[in-house]
């Protein structure tokens, strides 16, 4: 059986990829995808350690995480849609009517 540390490393790597994409991409959709990546990294941990500890808590929570991720995307797409309508683009740095 694969030792749990490997899963941790894998998850951490995916998470970092997500963070990287999040920091480098200015396209809102890319941002969403990066966030999905981070959430899935969490899912990997949850499922892997659900097997490691021998209880299904992690797997169940993984399901919930997926559901919420999808819901988040649904809301996010809605917001990005109105963003496109108002600013004519999906570049997050376009929207600067207020100063940071």
């Amino acid at each position, binding site marked *: 059986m694969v030792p749990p540390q490997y899963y941790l490393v894998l998850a951490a790597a995916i998470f970092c990829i997500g963070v990287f994409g999040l920091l480098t991409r200015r396209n809102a959709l890319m941002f969403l995808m990066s966030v999905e990546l981070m959430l899935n990294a969490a899912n990997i941990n949850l499922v892997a350690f659900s097997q490691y500890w021998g209880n299904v808590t992690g797997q169940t929570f993984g*399901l919930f995480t997926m*559901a919420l991720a*999808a*819901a988040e995307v*649904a809301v996010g797409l809605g917001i990005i*849609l109105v963003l496109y309508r108002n600013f004519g683009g999906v570049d997050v740095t376009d929207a600067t009517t207020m100063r940071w």
Partner: protein
Amino acid sequence: MNPWIAIGALALMGVGIPLGMMAASAILRPSVPEQGKSATYESGEIPTESAIGIQFNVQYYMVALLFVVFDIETVLVFPWAVIYSPALEAGVPLTDLLLPMLVFIGVLLVGLVWAWRQGAVNWTSSPRATRRKTERQS
């Protein structure tokens, strides 16, 4: 043996066979590049601008959102459906098994009814159609 080995093998076939057919056709087929042959089909007219990035009916987006909601909900129903009868046989009281799922589906149905009445699943809302509807009601 681990079933996934076999499944992987079939996946391999699923990729290999089409690739083989492509290869065969690549050997057989001629290639006669010709002006206008590669124009996209628009009923024989000269194609207008590219099709990529044209705007289409927003209803597709609505439907997609609805799908996200209900697909997720299906994911959550799956485990319930699987353990339902085993749990019954294990002697779990029916209410504890059934009521939560009924509540869950009920909430979803409220959402669906709302979306329905808001016209999220009405494909066309052309004035003519609505007028016909009203005439039918009257």
